């Protein structure tokens, strides 16, 4: 994908997440477009790209979120790292596998954020948070992640850089 297109999409994500996506909310839960973007970036471009993208978008999220500064930088950065590491295990993936990994990553993201909250302000019941926030968001992300894979990744035939035989001669950093 063209680098500028990628940057423009990345910059538009948070404004879309905070405005249009409110209409797509089920009860009080909306899909996390930023997490999905970080997942696909990390999975297809490696953990460093994932960490950088996640941290940068996390910073923007922190500016407009009601949470403490740094929470989203850390959470999205960790998700970028994890998605990059996950990507090392799979050369080619399917929609089902993508959905499974998005589900896993969303739950881990929820647990990371919950742990941070427990650290900062104790007393939040995990069962309640899992029931009303983590699980619905993870399921929503899973559906949207599967759709993005089917509609974008597969259509545009996005592959990992090292999946291209032409890149075999150059060392993978």
């Amino acid at each position: 994908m063209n680098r500028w297109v990628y940057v423009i999409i990345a910059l538009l994500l948070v404004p879309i997440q905070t405005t249009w996506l409110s209409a797509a909310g089920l009860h009080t839960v909306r899909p996390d477009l930023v997490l999905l973007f970080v997942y696909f970036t990390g999975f297809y471009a490696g953990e460093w790209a994932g960490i950088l993208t996640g941290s940068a978008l996390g910073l923007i999220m922190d500016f407009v979120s009601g949470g403490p500064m740094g929470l989203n930088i850390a959470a999205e950065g960790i998700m970028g790292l994890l998605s990059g590491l996950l990507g090392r295990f799979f050369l080619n993936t399917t929609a089902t596998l993508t959905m499974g990994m998005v589900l896993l990553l969303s739950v881990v993201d929820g647990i990371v954020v919950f742990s941070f909250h427990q650290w900062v302000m104790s007393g939040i019941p995990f069962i309640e948070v899992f029931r009303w926030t983590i699980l619905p968001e993870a399921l929503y992300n899973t559906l949207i992640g599967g759709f993005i894979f089917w509609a974008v990744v597969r259509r545009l035939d996005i592959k990992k850089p090292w999946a291209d035989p032409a890149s075999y001669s150059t060392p993978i950093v």
Partner: protein
Amino acid sequence: MLRQRANHRRIFILLLILLLLGVILFPELQKRPLYFLARPVVLVITGLQAGLTWIGGGFGHVWQNYFDLVSVKRENDLLKQDLARLQNEKIQLLEAAQAADRLQQLLDLKEAVSYHLVAARIIGRDPSNWYRTVMINKGTRDGVNVEMGVITPVGVVGRVIKSSATASQVLLATDRNSAVAALIERTRDEGLVEGTENGMARIKYLSLLAELQEGDLVLTSGLTGVFPKGLQIGTLGRTTKKESDLFQQAALVPSVDFSKLEEVLVITSLEERPGPPGRSGPSSPELKGSRK
């Protein structure tokens, strides 16, 4: 041979001229002998004329219909465009009328109360599902600062937690980190309203002796200083009362529909502002009982 044929032709032409002269000079001839000759000829000619007229008329009719259809189609397309435009205009007008109603309500409230208010528009919501916040288009430049209360004509919305020059972030009353000092209108028991995980709210720290009823009005108590006394927060839902607990708590149905917030008012100061005499005080009676 050729001379003989030429003579015959001359004789024929001569006879024809004589016949024409006879017909012209003696009109009687037109009626009788030529009549029998004219009848079949006219019959054939008129038949042909009728046929040609019918064909021509039919063809012309089809041709005309074709042109009519083309023009009807064009007209239909134009009418469809007009209809779409008018429908769009109708939607825009309805939207404008609804916005005008909402703004009128805000203005009425602003006029009714004595404290300082700044109207603001919701421009965004929290990017994560962990916090219930909204972004408004007014900041420090407009006098909006942290810890200011935010309301609508229907009731309490929340308080400002971050503020920049042109925008501010409002923590909604349904966020788990929000706490608003409240009292039950009927019993005057005081408690604290806070948000829950499922996006609703509850009132805590109510006395065990309080006799609560579902549907009781919950108002701001005015103790925290963010909100004046008497603003509606919501109505009581199901009460939870245990013998072993020190306090009782109840679910709260917020009077504001937080998913449909569009415009709000920020209380920039609780000090009484100068205005025309006879205006109602800070805890306007309209607000106490208003349930829209």
